[in-house]
């Protein structure tokens, strides 16, 4: 199933604006037209109340203020709005235990920072096609 990047909406949860910028840049080059950005999990859930568009994919940073990525994931999974949304961890805490933890917590994938620019478009595409991507860098 080919993914039409033009039709999908991707939410980036990232407290570092430069990281967001890089991801947004890469996604726009890929042809993703709808990109949303939130700085924290709280913002995501607040945003979901106010007419948020259907989100296909969330790129969720683990290292976040207030709540960490795992807590945010739990709340996203409980929210009916994100019923069909895939959630991928994007983190600089690259280690096997973290990867295992992400797998058992219910993430749909794991991308390490620094982002591998060359592989990133392919990874996103594979995730959207339903394949789990576990990248330790």
């Amino acid at each position, binding site marked *: 199933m080919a993914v039409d990047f033009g039709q999908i909406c991707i939410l980036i949860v990232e407290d*570092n604006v*430069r*990281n967001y910028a*890089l991801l947004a*840049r*890469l996604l726009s*080059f890929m042809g993703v037209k709808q990109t949303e950005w939130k700085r924290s999990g709280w913002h995501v859930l607040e945003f979901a109340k106010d007419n948020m568009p259907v989100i296909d994919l969330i790129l969720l940073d683990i*290292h976040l203020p207030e709540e960490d990525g795992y807590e945010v994931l739990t709340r996203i999974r409980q929210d009916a709005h994100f019923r069909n949304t895939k959630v991928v961890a994007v983190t*600089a*805490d*690259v*280690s*096997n*235990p973290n990867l*295992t933890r992400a797998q058992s917590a219910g993430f749909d994938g794991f991308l390490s*920072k*620094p*982002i591998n*620019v*060359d592989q990133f478009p392919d990874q996103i595409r594979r995730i959207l096609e339903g394949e789990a991507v576990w990248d330790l860098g």
Partner: protein
Amino acid sequence: MAERAIDLARANRSDHDPFRPAPTLGLRGGLGKTLLIAFLLLAIVPLSLLALFTYHQIQRATRQRLTASLEAIVAVKESHLLDWVEGYERQMSLLTESLDLEVVDPAQRSSQLEQALSDKLTMARATDPTLTTLLLANQDTGEVIAYADTAAVHHQTLPSLLRDGRRLAILPSAVEGGAPLVAVRHAWDDWQLIGLLDWHALQEIIADPISTADGTTTRLVTGDGLITSEQTPLPVSLDKGTFGADAAIDSQATGVAQALRGQSGAGDYVNFEGTPVFGAYRWNPDLQLALLEEQPQTLALATGNRLTAIVIASTLVVALVTAAIAAIVTRRLTVPIVQLTETAAWMARGDLNQQVTIQRRDEIGVLARAFNRMASELKLLYGQLEDKVAERTQQLEAAHKRTRYYNMQLTISAEVARVASSIRDVDTLFRTVTELIGNAFELNYASIYLLDESGKRAVWRAGSTGLPPASRSTEVGSSSLVGLVAADGQRRVWRRGAAPRADATPSTVPYLRVECEMAVPLQSKENVLGVLDLQSNRPDDFDTNDEMVFQSLANQIGIAIENAQAYALERATVERLKELDRIQSQFLTNMSHALRTPLNSIIGFSRVMLNELDGPLTDLQRTDLDVVYQSGRELLGLINDMLDLSHLDLGTAPFTLTEVDLAEIVEGVMATAQALARGKPVQLHQEVPEELPVLYTDGQRLRQVILALIANAIKFTDEGDIHLRVNRDDGQVTISVSDSGGGIPPAEQAHILADAPYDQNGASEDEPGFGLAISKRVVEKLGGQIWLESERDTGTTFTFTLPIRPSDIDSPGRDAGQGDAE
């Protein structure tokens, strides 16, 4: 012992208990009965036999006497009868002569003559009143010529009666109920004179008084079947079947029959009247009649029977007397025997307080005395035995108690030792130990005091009851037992009444009076750490033996306190080190995150630009940006390695052990290495055997090590060959990477695999980085060894071994490894 004594006392009392059931042995009936029966049999049987014999003798004698006398009587009567008959025959002869009858000629008979003869006969008859009738008859014809008669007699039949020459005939009475007549004759020539006599004349002869015996009957039986009887003087024909009116006659009866057969004899038999009699019979051929003398047996034997009765009665009396004597004798015999037997039975039941009270001078008396002596000796022996058994039992109990006590001491010591080594918390230890000691030795109170930090006061820390004493601390050197012992470290024992005590530690159990107290110092080497205080309500506790035991326990507790204190210190240190590690680990994680975040931008954006996503680049821009990008990558690698190394050193590095295909790993590593060596005149070679074992190890780490070694080789080899060799040994594989580079100077070889790569100064191109240090740690973690061999200008070989299946690496993925932390 006390219970035993009570038992014996009870047993003694029961001797005099009249209601105590005697053992029933059944001997009274047995022996006595046997003896009595024996006596009676012995007495009665011979007596009975004697009586029987006597009876038979009497019978026989009576019979003999009777028959003899009857025979004699019959003989006498026969002779009397003969005399009587001859007398009358003579009288007939005299009459014949006096009447001159011989001249009568039968041929000259005439009525006158007959009349004259009859007159003569009448006259003659008158001379003798016994003569009833006189007949003169012809001898041959029987014709009666003349007669003198007073009764109506069939004269014509008379001659026929005497026809056979009989000398005597008995004629039935002509008148019914009348007496018979007896005929006697005198014959001469052709004539005969027949005289008929009154029956009574004959009866007098028969009933001769010589027969004195009671009931004796004399009978006459004539040859033609007439029998006479005294009772019924009528001769009755035997053939008629009846005698008189009522008596049945058996003509074949003994006596009559024998006599009629012409025999004489005597004996006992049943006579013709059916009566058993003793009788004698005698046949007289002259008179053609038999005389019978019979006496009924009942009468004859009356005397004998009386005698027999006397004999039997005497026998019975004798038997009764014998029985009585036998009973008495038996009783005299059996009573003491039964008494002895019963006493023996009581003794057999274990009651030895038995004496037989038999005062006799005979053998039984001797037996009783011997029995009593035996019983006394037995009792004495048994008593001594009981004493001995009791003594031995006491000794055994004492020994058992001692053993148990030692055993308990050992158990308590072991338990205290176990508790001391297993419980690290001092207060729990003290509580457990005091409870143990208090319970095991059944003390009022066992408590532990420890000196405070100043060493001036001994402070109560734990007690066996769980309750604290009235004063929780005492001054070291005070007059209390604890204070004294705490001051000089010498154990002391106090006993009630021994010496007054200023501030004795009161028992926490008020109703249990403290009789003695012992305080034992708890020491570590020479230092007094505290005091073990023990209080007992038994006055004789804490002897020398106990002192040693409690001193030993106190020593153990002292060691335990030391250990616990050391452990507490060690534990605190470990906690601190752990905390430091945790902080370091957290710091490393944080730093890694902090460093990666800017690197994300540096690497990411430089790569975006290099990929010309932001627009085309000039060659110079590209070259410069590439430097930025590569440096970022390098920095990232360093950060990763440093973090890895730190985790390996902290023991927080994860290892995941799985089945690993070595060939596959080698293949993957070689592919990556080819990429690394690209652009360099370096040839990669591999010497790997066909068959490689499946390892149980961390594949990712193994790959990391091989790659690090090859990368290192590539890095230090400008031109030449690199060999990867794999060998399989026994239980392990050996993997080596050889290069043909410049080699490593010996001075550097020492620290090239150093434990602390952080020591290395500078960061030039030639520095090996963290790869080798990480490899060393990883290999050792996986149970192998790594080393290097190097020669200048020849090259360097790194070799490491790896067990096929490590035995000492477990819990994959989460390796705590405190040992690694040290």
